[in-house]
């Protein structure tokens, strides 16, 4: 079958690729585009290691076809640090030892970012359910949840500071 030509945006950059119609987005990202930060743990949607966002929505890239992403926006772990600065989640994952082997880490970071973007004040239970689609065999999740909690607190304080600064500017 002829390859499909796809134009898409990945981590803010315009990208074009051609792939066979049955090829997964995961295979495209890893094997065609060299974005090997996206991991494959199962290929069947059960482990979350391949998590990316598609138009801001968290998906398992192993369950999406490369051909489906034409005209859409993808974000992967490779784009999480901005301007040479790690995202607070990345900082806290290192600081709290939320990774041991680290194979699950890109997926967890993507899932945690989607959670915090939507719900800046998640409870422990909300965090646990938001991350339930990502398997980690090393950590027992304890330090992952703590890293996410710490990030949420940090980001909230940052927001407060920002809004205070805004207010003081106004007055």
């Amino acid at each position, binding site marked *: 079958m002829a390859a499909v030509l796809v134009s898409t945006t990945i981590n803010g950059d315009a990208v074009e690729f051609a792939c*066979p119609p049955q090829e997964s987005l995961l295979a495209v990202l*890893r094997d065609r585009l060299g*974005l*090997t*930060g*996206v*991991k*494959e*743990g*199962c*290929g*069947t949607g*059960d*482990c979350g*290691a391949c998590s990316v966002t598609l138009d801001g929505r968290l998906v398992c890239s192993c369950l999406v076809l490369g051909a489906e992403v034409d005209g859409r926006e993808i974000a*992967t*772990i*490779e784009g*999480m*640090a901005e301007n040479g600065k*790690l995202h607070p989640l*990345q900082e806290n*994952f*290192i*600081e*709290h*030892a939320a*990774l*041991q*082997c*680290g*194979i*699950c*880490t*890109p997926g967890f*970071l993507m899932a945690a970012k989607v959670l915090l973007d939507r719900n800046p004040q998640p409870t422990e*239970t909300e*965090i*646990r*359910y938001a*991350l*339930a*689609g*990502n*398997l*980690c*065999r*090393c*950590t*027992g*999740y*304890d*330090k*992952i*949840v*703590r890293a996410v909690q710490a990030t949420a607190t940090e980001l909230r304080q940052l927001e407060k500071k920002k809004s205070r600064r805004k207010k003081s500017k106004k007055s």
Partner: protein
Amino acid sequence: MANDPSYTKQKLKVIGSRVRRPDGVDKVTGRAKYGADHNAPGQLVGLFLRSPHAHARIKKISTARAEKLSGVKAIITSEDLPDLTKGDTAARDILENCMARGRALYDGHAVAAVAAVDEQTARKALKLIKVTYELLPHVTDVDEALKPDAPVIHDYLYTNGVEPRPTKPSNLYNVAEFGHGDVDAGFAQADVVVEKSYKTEQVHQGYIEPHACVGSVNPDGTGELWVTTQGHFTYRSVCANLLGMDIAKLKVTSSEIGGGFGGKTHVWIEPVVLALSRKANRPVKAVMSREEVFRASGPASSTSIDVKIGAKKDGTITAAFAALRYQSGPFPGAIPGMPWAAIGAMTSFACYNLANVKTLGYDVVVNRPKVAAYRAPSAPMIAFAVESTMDMVAKELGIEPLDLRIKNAAREGTRACYGPVYGPIGIGATLQAVKNHPHMRARLKKNQGRGMACGFWFNFGGQTCADLNIATDGSVTLTVGTIDVGGSRASLSLIAAEELGIPYKQVKAHIGDTGSLGHNDTTEGSRGTFSSGMAIVFAARQAIEVLRERAAIMWEIPIEDIIWKDGHAKARGSKYSRLKPLSLADIAAQSPSTGGPIAGHNESVPDNAGVSFASHICDVEVDPETGGTRIIRYTVIQDAGKAIHPTYVEGQMQGGAAQGIGWALNEEYIYGDDGRLQNPGFLDYRIPVCSDLPFIDTQILEIPNPNHPYGVRGVGETSIVPPLAAIGNAISNAVGVRMDHTPMSPPRILKALEQLHAS
């Protein structure tokens, strides 16, 4: 006394601090390269054809049609892998496990492999290979395999360890006995004797990263292998031996490893990938699918165990006995001379001080995948049986289970059930910590229960080789040959910083490939930080000698007048008061003109890794309607000897506990009557997810290992040993049923509850 490993009580400055790991940024940005993240120019895709049958004779494999398919570059069957093992039966078993030789021995056993230009072509080629099988009777259950009418898997296996030698082959390939005293006399003295039989189903290590490698063999006989492994030196020698290559001509690079837990201590696809590459004369990359990982890479044994414990009214145990039946897949256990049930038998009663103890390990072959080590291999199953029985004994005697354990706990001077006499050990201290822990006094609600259990693991040292090199700016490179699964590069850098007296940030640790160091044993038995750490201590001390020599040259004074303190060479005595101390960087800067590069090096076999003990406390809530069990609260208390990096030690304790929880409640290999694995995927083989678990509290105790300068003991494995029994005991205390079969899944609990209510 540069290489004296004795514990010195030296005051530690950076050891024990919670620094950031050197590979952290790479791992949170996706830059770290794991097994499947490497590609070689012109590489082919390798795929395996696997047997759908549990036991079958392979009458014919015809590859002609597949070979003709455009894009197929090589096809391998056992005919392409001549047996070069020269009577080494362990090596022959490895070869046969990598590729079936005349018989498929389990569902998933590789029968052929293909290298093609892309995955699609390789898949098509697999479909075109025709294998003609003749089905043979199979057996997958350990107890069934021991029955007199069971199909005998190998006509060449005779039971080892019994007198007289059996006259007929059988599936029972080894019997091992351990213990001391007279158990019959001991049971006769007992006021209470409890006997119980248990079963534990097969579980998989479940590392999230599947096995993956890129192999490349050149026509001149040299080769390279990039692979996710716990032991690249071992992989090198095994692959070279099986393929008839010179060990030194094969360079193996260990990728970042996405979990192993013992499962990446053995070769699976690697020798075949190298053979494919040799045949195709192109690099070949192969990545197992998750299904292949479950069907064809080593899980832990399923087991069947009997335990008998006798005690006096005051709680003194008078005798203890255990019979362990472990299956190891179709081949004898992976460690020659130390099969899986034998290891389990050794650990059985290691927590206790017993006058009379006997354990028997029966090792059995079945038609399941070859068993591999899984974190404290063989110990969790027998701990489930022993620690459950301990609770039953306590109940019979009417004393607290914790007190029964405290009363009988092993201590310094105790003769262990597997022979040696203990030095200073931590079991008593962990039990006392349980007693004092607020968790023990927390209120429980309806259908909730609390349980506790103990666990033991030997720990291991092994052959080790490490380098420490000082750059001219004073920064330090460590090159080690053990792999890093959970932050050991940080721990090793802390050790170098401690010895040299420099900041942690000045040190960078690397895992060297097989071309850069001498042989290092596989990273197993919790040996990474212990053994490489010891080698780094000695390498650093050697480098300090060189630094002193260089300072002597710079100052033109005798070396005896120079000491190394706080990262500086200092001249001793008032006559040198004008000499300002030289920092490591000062000396390194001058090294080109004082004798060249400054380095330290060490090869050793650190022994006495220091046995490790843990006690776990667990609260569960059982839903009597569904039989589902939730972990409400969990506490791990473990002796680490000395925690080099406490956060990573906690991580090991939590991770092991979580794996034990999965083993206890959910995880099991389910085989059909046809001998096929029915749940080879994460959907149906369900490991704990984030929402299944609470925070896992940890308490690190530090009872120094006398055979390590800082007192370090291995810490990686013990934490998986107690959870099964701790949870079983908690369930029993919650709803009154004694579970004797893992996983303690909802259907099993419901059935037990029904039986309880019927009686």
